[in-house]
């Protein structure tokens, strides 16, 4: 396809308010949460949980995402033993301890991020993937620590760094400890970037608050999945502040692209190949320049 046609084709889709709480419907046949059309569950699976009718991107768990991005059997988790403590003995309504227990059970994870080494079309990378099922993918001390350890590992082993975000922001149950993870992860990214290694971040629905306002926005290349909710302040807080409704498509991937905050919106099916091409462009591989 000639580039000009391609440019004409990939018009920004009329962005609509991203949906924030859609999980995959259960059953052999089910109704798409976005377009309401009846879809065959198997087809949805084969399509990386993207509705074959309307293109709605259902949320992926961290392990599903890792499967999508890495070559089979190549991912090796690091720091799997790291998990949250409760430094404030937080209790407001319910306790943090209870939330953690429930999250572990629900997500079958120890924390809201999985980190490790993996191969993407043969190229070894440092990979972190957040999971929204674990207390909204929120970043507390353990998440911040796991990400920073992955960054440090990637520096030590000269690996490209890929971080896939899905997070409501900082984990309030850890108070200022969570807030400081923003600075800690951003500082680590700053160190990583001195070494001329590529850092690609992939923002998925939703990426908000302290995660957007730290490592997620600091990548050399920022990719977003279609129609993800991406921003700093939550839509509700903004509406309360400005005392009017926010416009359609506000804080969507597509508006972020239009507003110059991200490099590209990439559909899930093209995600691995896009990352792979970017890695080939940004790292000294077989087709070196000098």
């Amino acid at each position, binding site marked *: 396809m000639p580039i000009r046609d391609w440019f004409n084709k990939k018009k920004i889709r009329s962005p609509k308010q991203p949906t924030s709480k859609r999980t995959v419907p259960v059953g052999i046949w089910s109704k798409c949460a976005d377009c309401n059309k009846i879809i065959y569950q198997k087809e949805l699976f084969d399509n990386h949980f993207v509705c074959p009718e309307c293109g709605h991107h259902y949320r992926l768990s961290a392990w599903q995402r890792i499967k999508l991005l890495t070559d089979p059997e190549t991912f*090796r988790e690091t*720091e*799997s*033993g*790291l*998990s*949250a*403590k409760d*430094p*404030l003995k937080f*209790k*407001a*309504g*319910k306790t943090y301890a209870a939330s953690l227990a429930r999250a572990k059970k629900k997500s079958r994870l*120890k924390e809201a991020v999985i980190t490790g080494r993996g191969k993407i079309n043969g190229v070894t990378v440092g990979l972190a993937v957040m999971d929204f099922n674990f207390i909204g993918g929120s970043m*507390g*001390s*353990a998440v*911040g*620590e796991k990400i920073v350890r992955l960054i440090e590992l990637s520096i030590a082993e000269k690996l490209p760094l890929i971080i896939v975000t899905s997070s409501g922001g*900082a*984990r*309030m149950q*850890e*108070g*200022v400890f*969570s*807030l*400081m*993870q*923003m*600075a*800690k992860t*951003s*500082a*680590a*990214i*700053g160190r990583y970037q001195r070494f001329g290694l590529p850092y690609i971040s992939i923002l998925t629905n939703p990426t908000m*608050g*302290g995660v*957007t*306002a*730290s*490592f*997620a*926005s*600091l990548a050399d290349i920022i990719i977003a999945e279609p129609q993800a909710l991406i*921003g*700093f*302040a*939550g839509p509700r*807080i*903004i509406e309360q*502040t*400005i005392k009017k409704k*926010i*416009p359609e498509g506000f804080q969507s991937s597509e*508006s972020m692209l239009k*507003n110059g*905050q991200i490099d590209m919106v990439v559909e899930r099916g093209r995600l691995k190949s896009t990352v792979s091409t970017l890695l080939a462009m940004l790292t000294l591989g077989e087709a070196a320049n000098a």
Partner: protein
Amino acid sequence: MPKYIADFEHPIVELEKHLNDLKKNPSSTKKSYAREILRLEQEIDRLKVRVYRNLTPWQRIQLARHPERPQFLDYLSELFQNFIELRGDRLYGDDRAIIGGLANFNNFRVMVIGNEKGRKIKDKLEHNFGMPHPSGYRKAARLFRLAAKFHLPVVSFIDTPGAYPGIESEEHGQAGAIANNLRILAGLKVPVIAINIGEGGSGGALALGVANRVFMMENAYYSVITPEGCASILWGDSAHAPEAAAALALTADKLFKFKLIDGIIKEPLGGLRGEVLSVAAQLNEILLAALTELTGWDGEKLADERYKRLRKIGVFSEDKFYELAQGMRLIKGE
């Protein structure tokens, strides 16, 4: 202008009013009158001590947000000399919610930057109640870099409810602007000293706060989320803010205990009102000590120390056995 009174201060104000009324109408017999005055004065003092020495986190937040509380410009004029304001982000605007420029502090030349909320209503609007847009953070970034270029220490004053949550601020990259400041400050090759003088509202405050030394006023707070916001999420009702404030451990004493800050500046009983003189000497001493110490360090050491400070922040558990078991399972092909 009627004096602003927080809820929990009403009993004190009532007694004070009663005392004043009494003083204006000395109708009683001299002896009992004098006794009554004395009794009231003692009672007020006792009450003040009882209230102000036992402030709840939520009450401290009231003091941190107190409309008569000194703001950045008050400290600037009291502690710094020859301030020259440097304006603009060289991109799209000059956000008045963040003010910065060159100044002398004792024998030091510094870049001083802070959130300014504004005092009178017109100033508040101009300074957007201290809530910066991306333009403000980008101005700060420009000044941080300028400071590094000219080997000037950065002194920052934090006092913001948070980054402004609006449509344009989101569209213009609020998140990216804050993230970028965190990265810049972390790597800056000059001393950075931050003082939280009132409100430390989340990432919007932290964007001026990644420093080699961090100090807090006694009644300042630093929080990942506003207590109101936290209460809205957890109870669905912002009226639970006092409980959220307590749960969030956002006061200076707590942060000092957690070793997240380096020192607390004591405030007079009842918190700062209108003037900064009562804390000027402490602030001056603390800043002078920090600057004297840090200006002796080279750029790499400063950035390294800042990184190390951040690097160790976090409380988590580490299950090496689990990790090992995971590895074994993988080897066994489970």
